[in-house]
């Protein structure tokens, strides 16, 4: 830890950090643009200038870029020196030459890093008399807006998109003062992480179209800390609302889970809350088969009347622990199941065993530190998207090593990349088809699911034996690594794939205790509900005709088959969204969405995390656990259920501690969901009445639906947004971190529920029918909720059947022919990267029936006209020119 002197103040600097990081970590405000905590330094903007002194006698010093300066023992710097402040002022003055004065209509206004930095350096006078450079904007798809005139050419967007996220369709064009950032041609951005551009851009070039659609000032949004609902990784998010609609989702920094970035399913999928398919109130089906709207009280009474005999409760992996537990207690443990298929339960059983074992399960951020990765049959980018970003950083470890050996700092981004060239740490992918990570893979094998299992068995054998084979090569790669990691998951719906992955990790761990295993689960709370009860089986519980069944937030028809509920007399559905199960229910109770309800969710690494309600739902809509409480008559708050969960399930003890309960106060104050500057609140309903209605009281949490209260000192688990004086953008996060890139000052949020001590004995593989029709998960299309987000729904692919030329020949079809199964019609895509004798179809709404189909049942469609590219739904390519 070198000691440095900044304006004569002694500071302990972290070895290996650059000066900018040290200054920010120590609360010293230095403006910057191009540096990014996750992407390092390149020295483009020159905004972070300070004065560096050569030796103790040097009084003049010279301008240096703090982001490009390593800290060394005894080094002296000044942030305040006149030449430094004047230089930083000039940087903004020069950046402003061409910047439009459109803050009043700019989406970024009010949380713009450029605005903040302009104020910070004190630039206010305009002396430039020339014309401004102007650009034409591009259509970049339904998610991201583009306003190039606002660009300050910090290069963050391309560095993020190309270098960090591996995208290749956003680039820097031109040169001098005419650098343009965009696509070669207008069109939908291809990368699954494009939404981060909105946060990475320090000004308003890349904007969130879902927000722009009903634009609201950032300070008028009401926000809360939430957990992303779109996959099992549990990324931390801020969800923001206005006028009862979710307006946007931002990344909520978590040093172990999602770091600084989200995927597009998570960011834009939350728009499902605004779907027209939302269930607005309670309904009872009348004799004519139509729903009659009834008050929630009447509906609850009606349901209570049905609770006399045996009632079956089907829970859900997308519902919170609180709601599932409330259901379980209402119907009794014996009558409850978690609502997953038997295959899903088996797979999550494996995950639970691995979590409970002594195998080392890294966090998503730790994945970035492994130096050899084997992906076993998990479609990471489509199924657990955020993990793909971490894998992309992990393969750079070899470059970081090379940099360390050459004496180049790890944050010196361009230099490290130059040194590493195309060298990548090994990444081996076993999958039935092309994978979005192929571009960084050192080795790929296209295998049918069963063959993946056999391949891994051979790798396990090869770890002990010495016979050359493909498996031997992979085994040697893993054995050669300092820290090998096995990644697998549930995307191929094969328990054996998970089991054999665990066996491999155990075998490797015996040779190298630093081995890690990272298993991706299915849904936001699959692991959580498996911990509540993984034995209850819906088929068995419903085996005999059932009188009354309560289904909690689960589309049983799609998940378990429509036949299952055919014999049910009273079907009570508690859900937020219309779906096939909802629409056949006898009574429907309107559940709050994740944005309107508190809830605890357990992610794939066994971390319990609390998601807070962003806003009060409209009308009779009520959080699931509250509806169930009402039915049970004990009216417990969320924290009441959290205590019950802890009491009932030893393994869920951490649920209570993962966030403070509703009693929590900061010096007597609640935590305000609105910003101090929520100026528009009083005007919101002024067209109805000039009297501002009283803000609703939050009985469930220590947060308040007002702007009165605290925010900056809230612990991370309760902080509704990041803001710090002078730092109105998400860049303010460093004010809340222990140090740049470190844990939150309030500690790491969430509680990991497993300590992992049991020795894993090894899983017996079960008989699995060889699957030849393989459903491919799609980041946009395979998630029930995010499919209902208006913008994402336009990106869902059309049905296709992808197969090798040999398979196509055997089915007597060719590229762009039609192939049918029942009324599902798919476009044939011939692709020799698909494993032999396999046909891959997309798991999108309407293709579920293919799950039980055989290859021989597929029929060629006569006279079929193919869409030009089923993977890319047809979209207009331009929506404005200027």
């Amino acid at each position, binding site marked *: 830890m070198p000691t440095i002197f900044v304006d004569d103040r002694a500071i302990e600097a972290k070895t290996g950090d650059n000066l900018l990081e040290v200054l920010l970590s120590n609360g010293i405000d230095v403006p910057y643009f191009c540096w990014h905590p996750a992407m390092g330094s390149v020295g483009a903007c020159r905004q972070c200038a300070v004065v560096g002194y050569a030796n103790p006698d040097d009084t003049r010093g010279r301008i240096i870029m703090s982001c490009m300066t390593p800290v060394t023992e005894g080094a002296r710097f000044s942030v305040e020196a006149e030449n430094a402040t004047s230089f930083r002022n000039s940087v903004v003055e020069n*950046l402003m030459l061409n910047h439009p004065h459109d803050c009043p209509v700019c989406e970024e206004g009010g949380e713009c890093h450029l605005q903040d930095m302009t104020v910070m350096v004190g630039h206010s006078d305009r002396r430039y008399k*020339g014309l401004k450079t102007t650009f034409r904007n591009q259509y970049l798809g339904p998610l991201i807006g583009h306003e190039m005139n606002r660009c300050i050419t910090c290069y963050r967007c391309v560095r993020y998109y190309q270098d960090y996220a591996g995208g290749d369709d956003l680039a820097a064009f031109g040169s001098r003062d005419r650098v343009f950032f965009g696509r070669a041609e207008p069109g939908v951005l291809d990368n699954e992480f494009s939404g981060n551009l909105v946060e990475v851009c320090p000004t308003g070039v890349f904007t969130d179209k879902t927000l722009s659609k009903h634009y609201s000032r950032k300070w008028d949004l009401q926000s809360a800390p939430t957990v992303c609902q779109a996959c099992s990784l549990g990324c931390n998010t801020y969800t923001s609302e206005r006028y009862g609609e979710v307006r946007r989702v931002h990344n909520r920094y978590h040093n172990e889970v999602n770091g600084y970035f989200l995927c597009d399913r998570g960011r834009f999928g939350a728009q499902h809350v605004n779907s027209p398919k939302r269930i607005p109130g309670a309904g009872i089906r009348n004799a004519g088969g139509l729903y009659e709207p009834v008050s929630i009280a009447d509906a609850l009474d009606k349901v209570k009347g049905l609770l006399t005999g045996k009632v079956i409760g089907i829970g859900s992996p997308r519902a919170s622990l609180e709601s599932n537990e409330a259901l379980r207690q209402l119907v009794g443990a014996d009558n409850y199941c978690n609502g997953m298929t038997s295959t899903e339960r088996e797979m999550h059983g494996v995950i639970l065993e691995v979590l409970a074992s002594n195998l080392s399960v890294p966090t998503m951020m730790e994945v970035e530190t492994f130096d050899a990765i084997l992906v076993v049959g998990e479609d990471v980018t489509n199924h657990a998207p955020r993990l793909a970003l971490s894998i992309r950083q992990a393969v750079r470890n070899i470059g970081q090593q090379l940099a360390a050996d050459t004496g180049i700092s790890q944050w*010196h981004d361009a230099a490290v990349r130059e040194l590493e060239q195309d060298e990548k740490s090994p990444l081996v992918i076993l999958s039935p088809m092309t994978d979005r990570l192929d571009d960084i893979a050192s080795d790929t094998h296209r295998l049918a699911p069963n063959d993946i299992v056999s391949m891994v068995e051979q790798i396990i054998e090869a770890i002990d034996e010495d016979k050359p084979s493909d498996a031997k090569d992979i085994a040697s790669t893993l054995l050669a690594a300092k820290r090998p990691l096995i990644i697998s998951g549930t995307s191929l719906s094969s328990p054996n794939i998970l089991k054999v992955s665990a066996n491999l990790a155990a075998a490797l761990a015996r040779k190298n205790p630093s081995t890690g295993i990272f298993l991706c689960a299915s849904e936001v709370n699959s692991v959580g509900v498996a911990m509540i009860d993984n034995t209850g089986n819906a088929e068995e519980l419903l085996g005999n005709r059932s009188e009354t069944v309560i289904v909690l937030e689960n589309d049983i028809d799609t998940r378990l088959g429509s036949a299952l509920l055919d014999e049910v007399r009273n079907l009570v559905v508690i859900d937020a969204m219309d779906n096939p199960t909802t629409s056949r229910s006898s009574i429907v109770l309107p559940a709050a969405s994740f944005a309107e309800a508190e809830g605890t969710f357990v992610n794939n690494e066994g971390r319990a995390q609390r998601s807070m309600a962003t806003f009060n739902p409209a009308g009779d809509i009520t959080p699931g656990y509250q509806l169930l409480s009402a039915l049970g008559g004990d009216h417990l708050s969320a924290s009441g259920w959290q205590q019950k969960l802890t009491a009932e399930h030893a393994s869920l003890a951490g649920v209570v501690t993962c966030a403070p309960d509703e009693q929590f106060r900061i010096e007597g104050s609640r935590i305000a969901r609105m910003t101090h500057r929520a100026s528009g609140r009083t005007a919101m309903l002024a067209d109805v009445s000039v009297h501002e209605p009283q803000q609703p009281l939050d009985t469930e949490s220590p947060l308040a639906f007002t702007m009165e209260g605290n925010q900056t000192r809230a612990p991370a688990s309760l902080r509704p947004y990041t803001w710090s004086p002078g730092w109105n953008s998400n860049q303010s996060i460093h004010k809340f971190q222990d140090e740049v890139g470190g844990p939150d000052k309030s500690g790491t949020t969430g509680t990991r529920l497993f300590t992992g001590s049991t020795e894993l004995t090894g899983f017996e593989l079960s008989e699995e029918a060889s699957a030849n029709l393989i459903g491919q998960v799609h980041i946009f299309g395979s998630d029930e909720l995010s499919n209902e987000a208006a913008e994402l729904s336009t990106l869902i692919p059309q049905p296709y059947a992808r197969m090798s030329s040999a398979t196509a020949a055997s089915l007597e079809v060719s590229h762009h022919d039609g192939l049918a199964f029942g009324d599902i019609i798919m476009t044939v895509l011939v692709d020799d990267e698909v494993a032999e004798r396999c046909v891959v179809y997309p798991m999108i709404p309407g293709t579920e029936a293919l799950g039980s189909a055989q290859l021989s049942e597929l029929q060629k469609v006569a006279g079929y006209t193919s869409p030009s590219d089923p993977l890319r739904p047809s979209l207009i390519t331009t929506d404005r020119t200027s």
Partner: protein
Amino acid sequence: MSDKPLTKNIIGFDGHTDLARYESLGGYAAVRKTIGRTDPDAVLELLKDANLRGRGGAGFPTGMKWSFVPKKEGNGHRYLVANADEMEPGTFKDRLLMEKDPHQLIEGMILSAYTISADVGYIFIRGEYHVAIARLQEAINAASASGLLGEHILDSEFSFRLHVHVSAGRYICGEETALLNSLEGKRAIPRAKPPFPQVSGLWGRPTIVNNVETLCNVTHIVANGADWFKSLGLGVDGGTKLFGASGRVARPGCWELPMGTPIREILEEHAGGMAEGYQLKGFLPGGASTDFLTPDHLDVPMEYDTVMQAGSRMGTGTMIILDDHSCAVGMIANLEKFFARESCGFCTPCREGLPWVQEVLDRIEAGNGELDDIKVLERQSQFIGAIGNTHCAHAPGAMEPLASGLKYFRDEFITHIEGKACPYQREV
């Protein structure tokens, strides 16, 4: 031993020197006596001893630069690159060397590569130099056919493959790290230093970039020794230098003269003084990115340190003459337009700052300036002008003629502003 080693094959010969002529005049003797026979470290010592300084503009000692290349480990590539981009306005020396005597450069490169154990070389040449490109390619083919290039040169263990890379334009490619990015097929954005190319250069491998004239000198130092080389110079720096003069002088041109030749001698004897009817007002001693000097500096010897003491830089040694019929503001406006246009667009002070400077200068030149504009120019030249303020040396170089112009020709700025017009009438 000629006292004009670089141009001895050029002076008084109309054509260009091919392999046969080159060898008949003693060419490749240095290669033959060195490759496989002399220890590379000994050649490096010789270079250091000769104190050859880079002819690309910065004057960095070549031997010292080479000594930063790490000891060879493993068999990864190591590269030698000749910087033949020559786009500095007012500079016209490397073209002459390459067009007239291409083997001289190739021999220098073989010897340099041998010294630093480089196995691959590139001549990065600007795309407009069609004649030089063709002649270099022809010379490389001839040298390769004679076993002087390629695998196992002259049956030694040493192999060196040499390629000509024809640039697609832009001045910034001359900056050595931008040049490397361009050679890699990328946008020519300079790289931050450290790491220096010697450690992580082309494709992340150890690389040396030298100017064409620098490399040509290597041949003669190896052939004739360090003492001989040092004795050629008139002052502390050894060797000869290609000096030139353009603008309204009687005989514009380029001449090989001893390092340390006084400016007056170059201008008055070699360039024949000012053209009929013109007076010397000022001059840029070594290309567009050097500070103005004035008639008061005529006795300064053209040598790195002495020109530096006079307040400028020797740069490329090719002088641009400002005469009394030409407008200093107009000349500076022309220079800044060039620098603004050639900015790579990476760092703020250069990308934004130079167009602003250009806008102000154009306005003053057009008679629309205000006195406050001079303050803007001064502030901008401080902001942009120091090495380290920007990502590379392009923009600081751009400020040298501006800052010195404001110093020496301030009255002209004021005349423009107060008279609301440029006082110089161009004869159209």
